[in-house]
């Protein structure tokens, strides 16, 4: 009896040692990040592909931009991710370096029986008036005028917005501020705003569900949700005064026109970019890393992951309807790494 106990104990001890050995070696090459939910699908895809390629595990938790910023400030993760770019003084205060990682599109979605994708045309002023609650019916003269030939019903408009704090809301509200003076004066832009009207759904899925259930509703979601849930999207008027459909090519057009080089810390919101084909509600999402790193190898591993993803992950991003960054911008970003991210000895960790 006691002999079996000893044997079991011995086996257990060996087992524990073996597990320790395995986890010990795996721990050496693990990168952790946390933040924005908007780019989560593409970060997970990149992380999976990068692990298969290099063996380096990237553990990304989509806890929200605000939480991501808090975690990188507290140094509990190797990189943070945020949809709302930080201002220069915020970056400086916490010794952070910011760069964009991927670009996505936000689309208005409607529920009007009999009306199909892209049939409703909206401009920024009208969209703003709807979300302000000043346009309350689908046959409002402003809507009828913009949509000649389309039989708009008398249905009252139900506005659906995000109830949780979100980068999607920030970018949507930022766009409305840029194109509607009333919106800018009364509401403004933030990850959560004081909505003048409507109901709030939790997350993209909450907004999608409410729009699907409510006849006469209008909401806004990331393009991937609109397509997955077969929601009716609208056309939008862009800065050049043309109506465009929300397509990858339209998001790309907006991203290409952006003047990144003259934006300090890449702090650039892509709303209402010029260009004939540009989709007006396009948004970049950002990565945050510390400027002076205590562990040069770890820092290099983090930048290595983004270097690989930005240069090899374009196809994966496009499959998920995100726009990868243009090559010139990637080069610019990598130059920023060299000039701004330093190891403990004060030398650049990249390349």
């Amino acid at each position, binding site marked *: 009896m006691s002999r079996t106990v000893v044997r079991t104990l011995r086996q257990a001890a060996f087992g524990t040692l073996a597990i320790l050995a395995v986890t010990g070696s795996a721990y050496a090459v693990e990168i952790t990040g946390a933040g924005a939910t908007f780019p989560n699908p593409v970060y997970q895809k990149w992380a999976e592909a990068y692990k298969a390629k290099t063996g380096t595990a990237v553990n990304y938790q989509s806890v929200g931009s605000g939480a991501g910023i808090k975690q990188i400030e507290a140094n509990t993760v190797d990189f943070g991710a945020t949809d709302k770019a930080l201002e220069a003084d915020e970056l400086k205060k916490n010794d952070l370096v910011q760069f964009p990682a991927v670009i996505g599109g936000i689309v208005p979605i409607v529920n009007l029986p009999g009306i199909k994708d892209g049939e409703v045309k909206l401009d920024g002023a009208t969209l703003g008036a709807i979300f302000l609650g000043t346009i309350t019916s689908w046959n409002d003269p402003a809507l009828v005028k913009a949509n000649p030939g389309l039989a708009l019903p008398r249905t009252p408009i*139900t506005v659906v917005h995000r109830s949780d704090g979100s980068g999607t809301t920030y970018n949507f509200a930022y766009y409305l501020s840029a194109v509607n003076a009333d919106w800018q004066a009364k509401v*403004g832009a933030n990850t*959560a705003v*004081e909505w003048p009207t409507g*109901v*709030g759904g*939790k997350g993209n899925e909450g907004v999608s569900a409410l729009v699907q*259930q409510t006849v006469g509703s209008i909401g806004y979601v990331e393009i991937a949700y609109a397509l997955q849930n077969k929601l009716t999207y609208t056309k939008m008027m862009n800065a050049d005064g043309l109506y465009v459909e929300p397509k990858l090519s339209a998001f790309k057009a907006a991203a290409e026109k952006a003047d990144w080089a003259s934006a300090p810390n890449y702090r650039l919101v892509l709303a209402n970019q010029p260009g004939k084909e540009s989709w007006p509600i396009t948004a970049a999402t950002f990565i945050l890393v510390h400027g002076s790193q205590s562990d040069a190898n770890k820092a290099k591993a983090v930048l290595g992951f983004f270097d690989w993803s930005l240069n090899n992950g374009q196809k994966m991003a496009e499959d998920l309807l995100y726009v990868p960054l243009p090559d010139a911008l990637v080069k610019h970003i990598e130059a920023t790494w060299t000039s701004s991210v330093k190891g403990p000895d004060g030398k650049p960790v990249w390349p």
Partner: protein
Amino acid sequence: MTPVAMTSANHSRGGAHPGRLGNILFGGSAWIFGILVLILLLAVMISLVIGAAPAFSEFGISFVWTEVWNPVKDHYGALSPLYGTLITSIIAMVIGVPVSLGIAIFLTELCPNYLKRPISTAVELLAAVPSIIYGMWGLFVLAPLMQKYIEPFLIGTVGHVIVLGDLFQGPPYGIGLFTAGLILSAMVLPYMVSIMRDVFETVPPQLRESAYGLGATTWEVVRSVVLPYSRVGVIGAFMLALGRALGETMAVTFVVGNSYHIAKSILAPGSTISASLANEFAEADGLQLSSLLALGFLLFVLTFSVIGVARLMLMRLQKRYG
């Protein structure tokens, strides 16, 4: 046999050798666990007060009765979530109390034996359903039904009554304070039913049988024998359910509509304290975070006062009936 065994066991344990090691260890750890609850409660309270301090020093006590929630201008007030929390809980109790009383009375007084088991099990299973499931069900199943049938019906009928009609106005969104209250009533129902069933069963059969023997009807037995005998437990059940309704988060967040405007109609979207916390905590910082913690503090105070009032009521009852 059993009483004898028990007294002898009591005898050998009591008095003679109190200083045995096992007893000390057991007693000591029980003390520690007991005190731990107090320490935990105090720690939660202190951290809430510290977190909420910036909000209260910025807005003062008027934070409690200001109806504004503007993260862009960084100006916050608790009135709207506070109002929503109270209204949804009141709706839940107004619907839940009579229904649960009915179920409990049916189970103990009227139910044939072969149905007792299935109904009791079903009620207990309801309590085991995670709140996110109630939320999803509320959003995807109940809300469309409310929007298409129930709310238009209410607006068309009760909506025309004077005064009461003001509560049933506006477009039928499907989600809102009323739907949240309905979901809450389903969620607190099993708690009330199980406790009440158990306390009703503690009524001595002799009392019940004698009342029936005197020719009392089921209603008279329930009113004059069962309820007076078990009133402490019944009130306790209501208060436990109310406490749960006040703090319920996930299910409410899905169906309450999450709007910071106070409307007269209970069909309108609103917000509750816990829903606001669930929605905004992850993205909040600075004054917004502090205001959310201040909301949490108010919920704490609210729940505490509910328990306090319940205690008071029980004490008065006990005095009156000796």
